[in-house]
């Protein structure tokens, strides 16, 4: 298949692996930011193929993982209300709150629907003017433009029965939080390709300078990932703290100005709670005051809902690269995808979930 097979070419992958082995003269710890990259690494067993001196640690770039439990509980409360059509991407439907998930709410009579785009939710609002249609807007800079577009469109058309429950977060502040930690181990980053497609990679240049780390925007297929790892290792070996793009077919330095403009019109930067990590200043997006009428957390009375995390879960350490999923004492025991205790086990893109799914047998790692 065009645009896919060439990035899954085993011969090319072997060449890149050999080049990585030749280039690395010492141990390097590299973090892939995005949960999609983690998933692809585990699915294709790239961690098994890399030389031992290259350690991949898995970053916080899974939107489902970092959505606070409290926000999920608020979503469940709204979805249970009479007259509400609650819409979400499929992977949020089975994420458990403190007692239920959205499937359970649906089985009790809640109108919960899976959509592929916030614009589909907006279309539902047009079709059902007598109902309140809520879209669960989670994600990084990748999903934010489409969510912004839906809100802007709703404002333009005067659609009063549409709102979004928003948990939008941004990558660079999370990278800064990880690098600022006193026990940080990360020496280089594979930046999340699709986030960079929207934002461009210029915003990583100050991070490189400030923290002296290389950042390599990288794609998701095995050859993309290996090319990104090779470039990161080369930069590390040469002591160059720079951004070098290895996802050129999708990412440019400037990104997508139209998406950025739409995003900036509708959202403003705000402090945001990250599940498993905690509060990161100026790390999230919230609706600007002129669009706050579309904010589901204000429209529905859910502000009183406060939830705490399981004390057993160490996902914060996993999300910051301090702990490997299978080194956690409750991994695969008290904590499984069926009964997740925290952030990184809940989503299929979470690091713990990827380990459980593809590598829970120690003989395979």
């Amino acid at each position, binding site marked *: 298949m065009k645009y896919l097979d060439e990035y899954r070419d*085993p011969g090319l992958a072997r060449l890149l692996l050999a080049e990585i082995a030749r280039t690395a003269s010492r141990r390097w710890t590299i973090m892939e930011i995005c949960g999609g990259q983690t998933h692809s690494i585990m699915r*294709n*067993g790239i961690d*098994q193929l890399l030389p031992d001196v290259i350690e991949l640690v898995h970053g916080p770039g899974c939107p489902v993982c970092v959505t606070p439990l409290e926000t999920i509980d608020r979503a469940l409360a709204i979805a249970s209300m009479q007259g509400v059509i609650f819409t979400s991407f499929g992977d949020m439907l*089975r994420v458990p709150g403190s007692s239920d998930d959205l*499937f359970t709410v649906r089985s009790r009579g809640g109108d919960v629907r899976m959509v592929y785009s916030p614009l589909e939710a907006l279309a539902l609002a047009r079709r059902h003017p007598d109902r309140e249609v809520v879209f669960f807007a989670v994600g990084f800079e990748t999903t934010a433009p489409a969510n912004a577009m839906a809100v802007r469109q709703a404002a333009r058309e005067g659609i009063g029965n549409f709102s979004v429950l928003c948990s939008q977060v941004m990558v660079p502040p999370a990278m800064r939080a990880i690098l600022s930690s006193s026990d940080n181990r990360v020496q280089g980053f594979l930046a999340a390709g699709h986030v960079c497609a929207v934002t461009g990679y210029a915003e990583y240049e100050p991070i490189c300078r400030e923290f002296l780390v290389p950042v390599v925007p990288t794609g998701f297929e095995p050859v993309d990932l290996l090319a990104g790892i090779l470039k990161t290792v080369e930069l590390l070996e040469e002591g160059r703290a720079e951004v070098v793009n290895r996802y050129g077919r999708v990412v440019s330095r400037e990104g997508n100005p139209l998406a950025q403009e739409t995003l900036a019109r509708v959202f403003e930067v705000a402090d945001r709670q990250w599940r498993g990590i905690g509060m990161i200043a100026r790390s999230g997006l919230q609706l600007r005051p002129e669009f706050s009428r579309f904010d589901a957390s204000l429209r529905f009375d859910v502000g009183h809902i406060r939830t705490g995390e399981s004390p057993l879960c160490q996902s914060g350490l996993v999300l910051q690269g301090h702990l490997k999923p299978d080194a956690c004492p409750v991994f695969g025991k008290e904590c499984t995808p*069926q009964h997740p205790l925290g952030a990184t086990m809940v989503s*299929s893109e979470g690091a713990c979930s990827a380990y459980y*799914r593809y*590598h829970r047998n120690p003989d395979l790692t």
Partner: protein
Amino acid sequence: MNGPFSCPLPLLRHETVQMAHGAGGRLSQELTRQVFMPHFGNDFLDLLDDQAKLSLPSARTAFTTDTYVVSPYVFPGGTIGSLAVNGTVNDLAVGGARPLYLSAGFVLEEGFPLAALDRIVSSMAEAARKAEVLIVCGDTKVVQKGSCDGIFINTSGIGSLRDGVSLSCRNLQPGDRILLSGTAGDHGMSIMTAREGLSFQSGISSDCAPLNHMIAALLDAVPGIHAMRDPTRGGVAAVLNELAASSAAGIDIEERAVPVRAEVRGACELLGIDPLHVANEGKLIAAVPAADADAALDVMRSFGEGRDAAIIGSVCGDHPGMVVMHTAFGSRRIVDLPAGEQLPRIC
């Protein structure tokens, strides 16, 4: 009207299903005589008794039932009707039975278009003809609007078991080869892409088909097949995991050997779904002793529905109960059961 010599019987007086169509009165009779009988009619059904009286050619009989709720009820490559016939035929056939007779129970929603019902019943009859089974008894209930989604169908089936075969998911032996009779994921992705709201066009057609003729030929040629299953809900991954768990054996699969249509792969990539987790409705997985594997593959490939058949892996003594994929890159990963609901109603 088709001209001066058209049928003098009144056409159906309604365009949609009415509550009275299920009430046992005149409209019920009309539905039976004008929709079901013309398509299904046979010596057993034509008697219109409350039961079919059957004699079976073998001492041992296989009996199965399944209920079909697929949405949408018409999809590329089939309808809920052809699915209801083929699904039950295949459930009998993979157990080593020759499917003979089916029952058909319909739950219809008030207001369901009679033209759609006629199309579905016609596709059921066509599927039954292809599978060489007879629909010998049936039932129709109508429920109020909103109580079901258009149409649900239950079919039960009886088949006669052939002698000399012993198929069981507990029979896998190390060294057995795992055969898949064609491309993975066609049915599930055809439903997925036919679904409202998903705004991309695809040429994906369901693989919905009867497997009994291919299975009969397989068992004629290789009576020593250890296990057969049709990978419906949960896809190839679910069946392989069930076989591995039941036999306490490990299964190794070669990623490059698993046939997947390019358009199915593309749709799966877009939606983030593993084709091994997607349902099939006309595919067979067989565990075959290594010495017989090529013969079994030749038989599969001699049938249209088996032309893409492949040996996708083998049974091993390691990692009992676990299915392991060998990737094209030389790494390995677990092939797990799908987690929860992936798709809308697919069968």
